[in-house]
């Protein structure tokens, strides 16, 4: 009984300590932003590996999610003779939920895990120590650009996802299922509010970008410098990011809905 309680307590203490360490790391990362302003090249390089390399999977997923939404929605809505609302349904689900959430999940699988692995390997091969001994702060030089690139790339990727989703949905709904083209766009514009739907979606993906990249760089920087340590940290990045995204999505949605 006491052993069980003690283990629970120790687990909690470990978790709180982890959180504290992650927060301190975040502060040090943010401290390094001034260097990023002086040397924007560092950010561009990371935007390439975090953003550009993730575009393909985001674009393809967005297109297909939009197409599936349209196909599913049409069969339900047409039963109520409400297929004119198909465009609204597709756009609203993409902008409010699927765009930010699915992008964040794909991001943590593609870019987040790569970030953790890269930083973890740099630690395991003493590259981070090497930088430190060359009087170069690895947090500023390695973590800050990666963190900011992830934070900025997420809303851009989510916008691409949603836009391609709407186009994919339009292709199926209007092109294949015969919903009227004018109705599709007019209904959409009438019902989708730029503030309630679009802006809130962007805010969500900014929060997700912040959290996913934070988890990724922390896990990489904090991992055990062995191959088992790096692979464990990579797995943790994906699991923790996904849980954080889904949990935060609920909280944010509850805050945003009036």
């Amino acid at each position, binding site marked *: 009984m006491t052993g069980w309680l003690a283990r629970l307590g120790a687990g909690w203490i470990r978790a709180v300590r982890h959180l504290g360490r992650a927060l301190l790391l975040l502060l040090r990362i943010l401290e390094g932003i001034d260097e990023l302003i002086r040397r924007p090249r560092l950010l561009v390089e990371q935007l390439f590996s975090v953003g550009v390399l993730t575009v393909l999977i985001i674009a393809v997923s967005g297109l297909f999610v939009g197409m599936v939404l349209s196909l599913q929605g049409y069969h339900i809505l047409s039963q109520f003779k409400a297929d004119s609302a198909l465009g609204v349904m597709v756009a609203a689900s993409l902008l409010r939920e699927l765009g930010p959430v699915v992008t964040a999940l794909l991001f943590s699988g593609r870019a987040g895990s790569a970030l953790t692995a890269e930083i973890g390997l740099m630690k395991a091969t003493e590259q981070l120590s090497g930088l430190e*001994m060359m*009087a170069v702060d690895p947090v500023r030089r390695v973590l800050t650009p990666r963190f900011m690139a992830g934070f900025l790339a997420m809303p851009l990727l989510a916008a691409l996802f949603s836009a391609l989703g709407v186009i994919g949905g339009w292709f199926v709904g209007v092109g294949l299922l015969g919903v009227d083209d004018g109705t599709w766009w007019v209904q959409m514009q009438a019902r989708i509010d730029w503030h309630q739907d679009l802006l809130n979606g962007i805010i969500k993906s900014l929060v997700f970008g912040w959290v996913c990249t934070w988890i990724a760089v922390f896990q990489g920087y904090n991992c055990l410098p062995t191959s088992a340590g790096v692979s464990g940290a990579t797995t943790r990045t994906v699991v923790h990011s996904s849980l954080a995204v889904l949990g935060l999505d609920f909280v944010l949605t509850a805050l945003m809905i009036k």
Partner: protein
Amino acid sequence: MPIESDSLVKIRDLCFSRGERVIFDGVDIDIPRGKVTAIMGPSGTGKTTLLKLIGGQLAPDRGTIEVDGLNVHALNRRELYQLRMRMGMLFQSGALLTDLNVFENVAYPLREHTSLSESMLRKLVLLKLEAVGLRGARDLMPAELSGGMARRVALARAMALDPMMVMYDEPFTGQDPISMGVLVKLIRQLNDAARITSILVSHDVEETCAIADLVYVISGGRVIEFGPPRQLQQSGSEWTRQFMHGLPDGPVPFHYPAPALEQDLFGAAA
């Protein structure tokens, strides 16, 4: 107590533990200027940890480390980085940045800390690479280098800012005899030509004794013995003799502590 009039690094009463494990328990070491000082000991005695403590990457639990008159762990981050610019460190794996080629790796500290013109920088980097014999390998990526070559590139990089001291972490481990010989020669040569202080951490007795001016032997968190290599080889201490000559049994037992063999084999049946 070792007292040298002109020592670059002074370690006094150093204590450091990692979790439950005590790694150093009151260590005093003096590293004389312009000499090659070796710190030797069996694996797991925290030799690499000692270098990290000197470089300020780790903080001791007790005791002080002075480098060139500065207490490393009383410095703020800026001052520490200033000091590190005057230190070079050669990591066991080389620690080259994997996404930069050989030339850029050596140029990295120069780009970070100086504002040299590109042509000046090129000359400097090529000179440093020439000194380690790898001027021709400037366009290779770290993944294309052998272990010994990677260490030589890392050595060129450590020397890039003309440091006052260079720390070598196990430079001979896992090297074939030829590249081992090259490294031994290079370390001695660079030490004498550039008048730097070298700290060498190793458990390769033969190579280390060939170049070191002074050897410290540490084990169990303490300095066991120190002195010139020849003196240690004829040491009266049984432990030192076992280590220096690589004897399989002695004060360090061959067997990991265990109950008697008979009891282990037949105890369960009895």
